[in-house]
């Protein structure tokens, strides 16, 4: 993981905690011996924010010291698949109600399984992943899994799926 991404994450986390702390300060403050509903979240957020800032400062120092560190070997196929997987998973959640469980699950599994196989070429996956046989096995798995999952959840667990 490059130092820059680490710094970016630290900064975003600090920003998030700071924003939430600002929101916590808008909560009503109670009186008397009881503790207000704002007290505990404020405590957690101040604690988290202070420690995040310490980590951020340490990481900045580390970044300045190790800027010239060599870049590790990156598999661009894995990067592409990672982005595809994130996008497909988000799409799966967004479209599951509109498209229905079986269709969206089959589509999701077919694309992600075929994509995974493509990523693994050269790492034990020797067959051509774009051959008709390989694509058919991915499609059969995707369809079969979706139908079995639908039947199990609908009829065994009595869950109404989208």
């Amino acid at each position, binding site marked *: *993981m490059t130092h820059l*991404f*680490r710094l970016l*994450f630290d900064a975003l986390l600090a920003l998030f*905690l700071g924003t*939430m702390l600002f929101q*916590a300060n808008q*909560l*009503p403050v*109670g009186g*008397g011996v*009881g*503790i*207000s*509903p*704002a007290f*505990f*979240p404020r405590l*957690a*957020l101040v604690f*988290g924010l202070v*420690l995040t800032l*310490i*980590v951020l400062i*340490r*990481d900045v120092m*580390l970044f300045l010291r190790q800027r010239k560190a060599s870049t590790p070997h*990156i*598999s661009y196929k*894995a*990067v592409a*698949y*990672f982005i595809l*997987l*994130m996008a497909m*998973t*988000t799409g*799966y*959640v967004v479209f*599951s109600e509109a498209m229905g*469980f079986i269709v969206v*699950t089959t589509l*999701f*599994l077919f694309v*992600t*399984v075929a994509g*995974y*196989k493509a990523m*693994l070429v050269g*790492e*034990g*996956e020797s067959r051509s992943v774009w051959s008709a046989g390989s694509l058919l096995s991915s499609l059969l798995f995707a369809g079969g*899994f979706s139908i079995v*999952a639908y039947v199990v*959840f609908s009829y065994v*667990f*009595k*869950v109404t*799926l*989208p």
Partner: protein
Amino acid sequence: MSDIVASLGILVDIKVLLGIAFGTFLGLVMGALPGLTATMAIALLIPLTFGFPPEVGIGMLLGAFCGAVAGGAVPAILLNVPGTPSSVASTLDGFPMTRRGEAGRALGLAIASSFVGGMLGALLLILFAPPIATFALRFGPAEFFSLAILGLVVIAAVSTKSILKGLIAGGLGIFLSTVGSDPITGVLRFTMGEPSLITGVNLLPALIGLFAISQVFQDVFERIYKKKEPLKKQALTSARPPWGALRRAWKVIASSTLIGTLVGAIPGAGGSVASFLSYDQARRMSKTPEKFGTGHDEGLIATESSNNAMASGALIPMLTLGVPGEVATAVLMGGLTIQGIRPGPMLFEQSGALIYSIFIAFLLANIFMFLIQLFGIKLFVQILRVKEAYLMPSILVLSLLGVYAATGNTFDMYLALAFGALGFLLNVFGFGTAPVILGLILGGIAESNLRRGMTVFNGDWTRFFTQPISLALLAATVLLLFFLFRKKSPQSYGSGE
């Protein structure tokens, strides 16, 4: 006594028995697959437990925990790839035995040692848990507050490489526990106008997201930087336990079980520590220490009996004090909480029969684990051939489907996805996910007891430091932090990658 008699009913309840067997089987499968852990097995099972009575659901979860710890030995012995962190030490003598052509004997030894260690550990759990819980009945709001803080600090400090980052993740979890309607004043906190958040952050999507979805993302992400070696095919006909070898190593089993249970009961110590300590102790006790590491029976017996005893020990602080000592029991506690069971001393006081049902279920899980592995070892060897290309996307679907099935709310699927992304980032940048979930569970306990205590003590906060047990717990927290900061190098405070 009546509680024990009442709990014996589960022995003849076919639903409970099937639930434990199913959970154990799933745990064994997940444990046998390198990269999938006991934590993920429990997290994926939780949604399925909703439709069952608590005894069945708890049995499934305990079975998964027990099975996953034992299942890790299969790839450790056959492929030199530990299925779970606690089976790392089993590669030392297990894999050399496989290379000598004794894979069946090694697996037989591992299966039998896991069973004996697990059963003895479960008996120690039954012996020690009730007196600890009885002592904990003296706890009031100050003690529970201090205990929650100790639990959080322990898991934050030891579950990640960086203490500071673990504590940040714990703070984040505490903050998330405050989302929703304030239970005392009814004030809405951080709901951002979303009605589904009024009752707070649902624990299930958080668990599934942080421990199942994030794991899949991370597994794929790791391929960006390093190649994974393809698993080699293995053939095996049987795995008959060599009972004679086990009888001869009774001293090793006794010491390893004791070490496993004790280390498991110490919050944060974990399975790999227990198995390496037991391994080292067995070598010291051995007449042939030079054979350790070359495929020696005693080495494998020590690590495997210790592993499963550790699982029993880890249940002690979780059940008696409501403070899980490591990640898998933190998730298990989340699963119990979702079932409406709040682990802690009051559970022993109010639901004695349920506690003994848990004990019996754990003993049964060990028996099922032994039988399933003994007769199904060929299947577990086949499981190693399952292609990741099919496995990882299927886990994603099952995770999201499980959340939807349990809650019937699409918002919770978004929540699980968000927690998955959060968990992935936290893991990649060295913050860890266990402190978040523990913060989410213990944050509510800490806040409610802090507020209750302040009311009871008429606003005198110094009482949290003057009650003896509370003071001892807070002192233990400070001491732990002090020693951990001293032990770890300065660099590890910041970067936890």
